[in-house]
């Protein structure tokens, strides 16, 4: 950014100075040429009024005059004889007539060649006349102008850098306002808006457009919330009535066959309800609903509670649950959803870890992340099927009859996303499944990690 600004500014400066320099040199040189041309036309006039005799007389007078501006005046007669002075001979490269021609000549009393500008004119009866001006002074002036230009570039560069830095600071300040809004919205604060400035510039227009876009996003999320809520209402009421009717029928009969069938039907309606609820929870969690319920709590405590709840069931299936976590490990998140995520992972392990003996729950800080692991030593999930397992309604084991099992891991993934984290399924060293839930750690300095939050 800075480099781009500098390049643009310096290019502009350079082009300007170059043009100025060229213009100045042209101006200086054209002065010289005009002088020579003027002298030439005076000489032509002499020839016209007094012929060759007057011209030669006047040239000789002129060459004797001190402080004359021109270096050389030459007359070439019809027969080719050269008179006049200043140059040893008629320069070979100069044609007649010529408006202005610059040549390098060697003068007898000067060591290095000097540059002269010449104009020539043809005389009416076959002769020619030449006026040559020394360009040394002009060259010196030109060089001075070039030096001045370089100095201007040096000073200009310093100013350019200063201007670029200032402009960058101004621009960065404006852009940061947008970054802050975007970050706040990304973190879940959908009500955050860009504060309008008074200036009616393109930033203001951008800000207005972004605000309009955020208004729309907020409206859509609100609509989604309403749709899911009313869908839940619409679908659950019939399920409630279904269950109610089944319960009444169950209570009204003593026929063991009917009671068995009704008990199964009640269980199925419960499963239907659970599936519906999980699917709705996924939708709501995906929309970021629930971020306003974030609290600070201990992950270690959460893992211990889950180990408590599932402990006896795991032992009945031949697995021992171990919890490994150092300290309280506070996180800022949705306690119940994270509890649910870990429970789903444990539930999943209990369902699929047949033949395993261990179920390890662990949590540890890994840089900016808290890694939460549920690891078993059962048969695991083949690497190729792991991504599939995280998809909604995925069912790896087609023979399973447990309703809603396909939603559990998908919900875990959306819960991870709600927290800005990720879920990964990997293979455990001893062949089992290792589910890793990575949660970013919020800045703990502002909320404090005082142990009073954890009793």
């Amino acid at each position, binding site marked *: 950014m800075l480099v781009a600004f500098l390049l643009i500014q310096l290019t502009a400066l350079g082009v300007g100075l170059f043009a100025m320099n060229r213009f100045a040199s042209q101006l200086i040189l054209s002065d010289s040429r005009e002088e020579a041309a003027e002298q030439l036309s005076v000489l032509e006039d002499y020839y016209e009024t007094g012929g060759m005799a007057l011209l030669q007389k006047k040239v000789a007078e002129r060459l004797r005059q001190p402080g004359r501006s021109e270096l050389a005046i030459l007359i070439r007669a019809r027969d080719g004889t050269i008179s006049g002075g200043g140059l040893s001979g008629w320069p070979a490269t100069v044609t007649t007539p010529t408006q202005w021609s610059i040549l390098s000549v060697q003068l007898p009393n000067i060591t290095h060649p000097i540059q002269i500008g010449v104009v020539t004119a043809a005389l009416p009866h076959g002769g020619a006349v030449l006026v040559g001006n020394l360009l040394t002074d002009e060259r010196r002036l030109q060089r001075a102008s070039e030096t001045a230009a370089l100095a201007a570039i040096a000073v200009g560069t310093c100013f350019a850098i200063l201007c670029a830095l200032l402009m960058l600071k101004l621009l960065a300040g404006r852009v940061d306002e947008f970054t802050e809004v975007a970050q706040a919205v990304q973190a879940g604060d959908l009500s955050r808006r860009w504060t309008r400035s008074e200036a009616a510039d393109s930033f203001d227009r951008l800000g207005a457009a972004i605000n309009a876009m955020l208004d729309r996003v907020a409206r859509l999320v609100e609509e989604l919330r309403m749709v899911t809520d009313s869908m839940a209402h619409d679908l659950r009421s019939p399920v409630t009535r279904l269950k109610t009717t089944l*319960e009444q029928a169950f209570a009204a009969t003593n026929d063991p066959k009917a009671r068995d069938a009704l008990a199964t039907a009640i269980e199925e309606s419960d499963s239907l309800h659970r599936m519906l609820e999980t699917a709705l929870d996924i939708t*709501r969690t995906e929309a970021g609903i*629930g971020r306003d319920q974030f609290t600070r709590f201990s992950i270690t405590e959460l893992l211990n509670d889950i180990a408590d709840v599932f402990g006896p069931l795991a032992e009945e299936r031949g697995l021992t649950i171990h919890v490994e976590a150092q300290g309280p490990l506070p996180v800022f998140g949705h306690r119940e959803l994270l*509890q649910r995520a870990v429970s789903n992972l444990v539930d999943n392990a209990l369902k699929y870890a047949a033949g395993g003996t261990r179920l390890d729950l662990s949590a540890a800080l890994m840089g900016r992340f808290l890694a939460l692991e549920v690891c078993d030593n059962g048969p695991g999930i083949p690497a190729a099927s792991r991504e599939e397992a995280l998809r909604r309604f995925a069912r790896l084991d087609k023979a399973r009859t447990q309703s809603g099992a396909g939603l559990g891991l998908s919900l875990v993934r959306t819960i991870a996303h709600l927290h800005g984290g990720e879920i990964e399924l990997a293979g455990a060293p001893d062949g089992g499944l290792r589910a890793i839930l990575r949660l970013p750690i919020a800045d703990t300095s502002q909320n404090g990690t005082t142990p009073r939050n954890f009793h």
Partner: protein
Amino acid sequence: MSRRILVIEDDEKTAAFIAQGLKDEGFLAETVGDGRDGLFHATDRAFDAIILDRMLPGMDGMAVLAAMRAAQVTTPVLILSALGSVDARVSGLTSGANDYLVKPFAFSELLARLRLLLARPTGGPTEETVLRCGDIEMNLLNRQVRRAGQKIDLQPREFRLLEYLLRHQDRVLTRTMMLEGVWDYHFDPGTNVVDVHMSRLRRKLDDGFDPPMLHTIRGAGYMLGTLT
């Protein structure tokens, strides 16, 4: 005297089912199908408990609750809702409800929760050091449990569960009530986790003793107590 229950529910079938169930259990139930009427009844007459649907025509259930609490009506309220998501439940409980039940629910679940609401002590919680039920004795200071004078070794999680059962003895406790009350677990894990806990506790508590204290209530849940 029979307890009076106000049911504010717009779905007629659900309202009739609840009212019938409550009458069968010896309660006096009154139903209204609209939020405004519900608020009028709740503030006008003395009920022992209110069952309030969250989504109501006329006036939203949460608005009814807020208006009631603002008018200093402290009657215990159980919210019924099809909004099962965690957030809806949390906001229901933080806005003054005493309990929250998600549709669809089993009537036994509603009944168990209602009974617990009605039994809620009015004063502040008293600091007890020993909990008793029949010949079971739990010392909360040295964390020892005895039955008929005999020491019973319990794991910390079993101790936690028994403490909850003792504090709610002689009442039917459903599986979800135990998940919520003992482990602060607010969703159905979908497996028989509670049953496994109970069968283990029962083995330690009832094996070799008479009479059995931990009872399974068919279709409802569990109860700790001396059945009379």
